[in-house]
């Protein structure tokens, strides 16, 4: 028997509506006047989800993967009734619990105990249900001693543990989970994984969205692959992950320009291929924070000149993260025409989590009036940096860490003896 049966689900957003639309009455008046003058109204829209149909059997654990913006979260939002589909429908059998975020509605001023009840109610648990599971929740989170302390005094790790613990004790027939495992320290993540596995085994239906391929492969026998709002693959996990990571469609981690004449470039050099590689040299558009990632560029040099490969990394907000050129001394002299392959290795623990766009180019030194940009493809490649497990610059912090980079720094610290008039600086060494 089905648990979820979706037929042609679609969701259309007005551009700009997805993020912020703090429009005021004035904007509307201005828009109205403009419409009067031009005689028509121009509304740009995008389909966040388009014609998605699938069925989930009762007790099945289904994973959903896809690039950022592929529509995964939109799908969960539709199924949990946070927003309505523009077209299509889905039949849902049973109570739905959705976990699109850990700690929704947690209030900093309230104590741990109070937040358990509040958060439980928000997630759809009744008062008596929470009371029944209260001890279990507290034990799982390991916050017994701080139950009557306001959550604002908690460490972020404790807050996350408590929040996940409340959510993990939710018992709906259908559970929708979005990427919540990307939080907490490694040890707690393992416990969460175990909890998620037992969800699947208890006969409940689970829909699970994640960027973490190992996690999703472990939890879900069957996966859906979404790409730009469309369902492009539905099948066994290994098969779908394979298509996502190495396929032509799911990934933008590889570009090939087969035809020499149309390949980007001029009469000095032409780009022939570019790809993102992981530590073992495989094409991959998902890389771990704690692993190095390579940008491989292959190009044809058409005349004997001094050129060098160049890359630019830009993050989701369009901020330039860095530019880099191949500084190998071989590129300081003119080289024979032919095909060259070079890989730029970006060290582990440098990039922050998120999506990065890579521009690849072949340039030459600015000398006189010679051309210096020969072949350039902006946003040729896209890859995602994710965090799986192990020690990273995140430490025990669970929230979002800003900035395009997130280096794992070496920190030195010492305890100071402070007397009343000691200035607040480290004392100069006497030796």
């Amino acid at each position, binding site marked *: 028997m089905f648990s979820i049966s979706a037929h042609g689900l679609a969701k259309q957003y007005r551009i700009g509506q997805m993020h912020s639309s703090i*429009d*005021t009455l004035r904007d509307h008046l201005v828009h109205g006047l403009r419409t009067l003058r031009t005689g028509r109204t121009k509304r740009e829209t995008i389909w966040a989800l388009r014609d998605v149909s699938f069925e989930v059997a009762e007790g099945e654990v289904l994973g959903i993967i896809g690039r950022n913006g592929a529509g995964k979260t939109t799908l969960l939002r539709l199924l*949990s009734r946070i927003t309505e589909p523009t077209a299509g429908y889905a039949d849902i059998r049973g109570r739905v619990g959705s976990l699109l975020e850990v700690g929704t509605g947690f209030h900093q001023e309230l104590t741990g105990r109070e937040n358990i009840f509040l958060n439980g109610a928000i997630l*759809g648990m009744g008062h008596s249900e929470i009371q029944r599971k209260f001890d279990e929740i507290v034990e799982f989170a390991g916050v017994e001693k701080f139950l009557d302390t306001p959550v604002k005094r908690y460490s972020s790790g404790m807050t996350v543990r408590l929040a996940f613990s409340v959510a993990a004790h939710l018992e709906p027939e259908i559970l929708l989970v979005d990427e919540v495992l990307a939080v907490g320290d490694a040890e707690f993540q393992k416990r969460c994984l175990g909890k998620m596995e037992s969800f699947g085994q208890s006969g409940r239906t689970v829909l699970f969205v994640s960027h973490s391929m190992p996690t999703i492969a472990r939890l879900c026998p069957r996966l859906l692959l979404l790409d730009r709002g469309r369902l492009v693959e539905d099948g066994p996990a290994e098969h779908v992950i394979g298509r996502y990571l190495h396929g032509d469609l799911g990934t933008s981690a590889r570009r090939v320009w087969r035809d020499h004449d149309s390949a980007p470039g001029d009469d000095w050099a032409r780009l022939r291929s570019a790809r993102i590689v992981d530590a073992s040299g495989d094409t991959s558009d998902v890389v771990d924070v704690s692993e190095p990632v390579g940008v491989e560029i292959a190009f044809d040099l058409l005349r004997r000149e001094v050129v060098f490969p160049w890359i630019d990394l830009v993050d989701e907000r369009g901020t330039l993260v860095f530019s880099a050129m191949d500084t190998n001394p071989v590129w300081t002299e003119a080289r024979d025409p032919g095909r060259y392959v070079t890989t730029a290795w970006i060290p582990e623990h440098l990039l922050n989590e998120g999506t990065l766009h890579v521009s690849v180019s072949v340039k030459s030194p600015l000398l006189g009036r010679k051309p210096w940009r020969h072949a350039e493809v902006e946003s040729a490649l896209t890859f995602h940096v994710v965090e799986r497990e192990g020690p990273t610059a995140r430490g025990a912090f669970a929230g979002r860490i800003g900035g395009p980079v997130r280096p794992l720094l070496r920190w030195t610290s010492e305890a100071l003896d402070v007397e009343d008039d000691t200035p607040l600086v480290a004392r100069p060494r006497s030796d």
Partner: protein
Amino acid sequence: MSAVSAPLRVRRIQRSRRRVQLNLRELWAYRELLFFLIWRDVKVKYKQTALGAAWAIIVPFLTTIVLTLVFNRGLHLHSEYHVPYPLFLFTAMLPWTYFTACLSASSMSIVGNQNLITKVFFPRLIIPLGSVVAPVIDFLCAFTVLVGMFLWYGRAPHWHAVVIPAFLGMALLTAFGVGLWLSALNVRYRDVPYLLPFLTQIWFFVTPILWGITAVKPHTQSLLALNPMTGVIDGFRWAVLGRGLPHYHVYLESLGIGLAITLSGLWYFKRVERYFADLI
């Protein structure tokens, strides 16, 4: 092991039709969440304030003192009631303070709870509903001051006092109706926080707070009763002070307008709530 024994209800998720459905059954199913949200608002409201819940008493009390000093200058705005002006004023300040607290809370309620709106489903109505229930606690705190004033002036409550809850209910209904409009409009038009202080200020002067409704002619009274707060304040005053005659036509007219605002507010709110998560 199957977690399910009874056959489960199948729910269809699709674009809602144009007809507005109130879905009271669902609202009832989420009553515990409503309770918890109110409880949270009450609990959090005065956290980290030095005076705490005393603010609920201080604000209407000091306002009454200041307004008394300014307006109690032989203007005879309340001559027919034969009560000290501070008492006359405070009986109106009580429901009025409640009403304005409701408006400021509910106008920001949907936008202020956007983390909930965009992450979990629940009937959105419980948010503005909670915003008009939570200030009742403040109202009750301030009510003790009224009791104190009665003792101070050596007065006994009149039997009319039994209908106080009815007029409080009327204030709640009106606040809920206006709050529905403001909270839903604020999702789309962030002009509401700028409009609100202006709105409450004007509203304060067209409501018989500083003056008694008997100061104007009967047909002007009907005109004033188009403001639903006129009925609330005048009725409250009649119930508390036990003076003068009840103005039934004013109460009924105000109640009717209050109901109309609430029904239209419900209609508008239900019509636009499906876009809240997308617009916020």
